[in-house]
């Protein structure tokens, strides 16, 4: 990870501001190649205890931890949409009574191809001040309707794969994921992990999700029906949802084995895949998405992801017909 080396610990300055023994500070800036990165989450994990401290960068990209236990830290900045990739630096030392400086340079995702990041940062900053209670359905349940700017898991846990799946997955990445179904205008990934805009239309008996990727829509039946018996396997499977207090729990089965899971991770799976999603809307502006993927045919244990999506009420889903002019198979030499 060559960009990790771009971060420099440029100084440890004595300070009188740390009242307690054994504590110190850590501050600096977060920038991407375009300039300061505001509202970036900086995570400092105290290696000795596992405690994680977080700070949000200000408008000039400045972050400031003022009261940390001394010791070694792993400092990370989660990826933001398709705009920037995850940054991690190990062995950042915080000394008692001193303030360390760490200036972080996060790299653009996909080498910063113009227009590929879908203006993620601009959109999330535009709606940073959305406040209010979560809207409710007539029956009192949370209404999940809205335009959502989806995000990645800030702390993804690596999947544990069975040997065959491990081999397939390694091969995919060795080939720069050139055979990804998404690149061939097929449905790439049924999981809610693609950090692009999603529109939710929530009615009493049906939740519809719209997005600018194949197959552009997803239906989640909330009317109490069961999964069909012996249904044909499909790219998106069959989804039914029910409420657990204020949490909508969606169960999806009936997948084919053709999609690649969890966005850029690209995990293989079998038709034994079961996906469980738990959606919570604690307030107007946030949707908490907890994902569990079970596949005894591919995973050693279930794979989890936890995302926080943000409301983007002024945005819209736009048409995106992938097969209109897909030159990728020819230009990348994919047969």
């Amino acid at each position, binding site marked *: 990870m060559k960009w990790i080396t771009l971060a420099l610990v440029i100084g440890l300055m004595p300070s009188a501001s740390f009242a307690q023994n054994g504590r110190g500070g850590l501050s600096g800036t977060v920038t991407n190649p375009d300039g300061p990165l505001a509202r970036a989450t900086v995570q400092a994990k105290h290696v000795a205890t596992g405690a994680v401290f977080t700070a949000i960068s200000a408008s000039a990209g400045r972050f400031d931890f003022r009261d940390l236990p001394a010791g070694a830290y792993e400092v990370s900045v989660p990826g933001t949409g*398709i*705009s920037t990739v995850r940054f991690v630096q190990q062995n950042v030392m915080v000394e008692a009574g001193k303030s360390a400086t760490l200036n972080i340079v996060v790299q653009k995702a996909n080498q910063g191809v113009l227009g590929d990041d879908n203006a993620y940062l601009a959109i999330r900053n535009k709606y940073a001040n959305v406040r209010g209670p979560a809207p409710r359905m007539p029956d009192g349940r949370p209404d999940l309707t809205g335009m959502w700017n989806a995000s990645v898991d800030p702390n993804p846990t690596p999947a544990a794969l069975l040997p065959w799946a491990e081999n397939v997955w390694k091969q995919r*990445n060795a080939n720069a994921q050139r055979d990804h179904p998404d690149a061939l205008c097929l449905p790439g990934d049924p999981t809610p992990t693609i950090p692009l805009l999603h529109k939710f239309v929530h009615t009493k008996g049906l939740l519809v999700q719209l997005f600018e990727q194949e197959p552009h829509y997803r239906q989640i039946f909330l009317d109490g029906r069961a999964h069909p018996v012996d249904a044909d396997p499909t790219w998106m499977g069959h989804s039914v949802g029910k409420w657990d207090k204020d949490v909508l729990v969606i169960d999806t089965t009936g997948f084919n084995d053709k999609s690649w899971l969890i966005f850029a991770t690209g995990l293989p799976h079998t038709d034994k895949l079961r996906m469980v999603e738990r959606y919570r809307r604690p307030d107007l502006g946030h949707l908490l998405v907890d994902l569990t993927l079970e596949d005894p045919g591919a995973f050693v244990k279930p794979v989890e992801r936890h995302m926080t999506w943000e409301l983007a009420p002024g945005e819209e889903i736009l048409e995106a017909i992938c097969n209109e002019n897909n030159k990728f198979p020819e230009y990348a030499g994919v047969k």
Partner: protein
Amino acid sequence: MRNAFLTFIFIAATIALDGSTVAAHHSFAAEFDITKPVTLTGKVTKIEWTNPHAFLFIDVQDKQTGAVTNWEIEMGSPNGLTRLGWTRTLLKNGDEVTVEGSLGRNKSNLANARSVVMTATGKKLGAASSEGAQ
């Protein structure tokens, strides 16, 4: 053996999670070569405002030989570009631009664009939204 296996999984998966293949349609490395950066200045001959990618075509003249070559420049999707402030008529045939990007792996006179600057105004197109995001 089992522990060694799981350790290997952890290392490999960490690389992928941190990897740079993150993309809306296809990964950069599948089509372009980051080790071959290119800067091209030329006049617009065509725009393909299409999914999944918009393409900009420019005539680039070799200053020494005078030979003109038509280059194809791949960008993101029309939707992504629209959200950065582009429109399908932003560039017109004959407009001169300078493109910075990387060369295609399998096709000559193909590159992608990390930036497009309009010569007449010096304006970096499609960058205002993200760069002004603070």
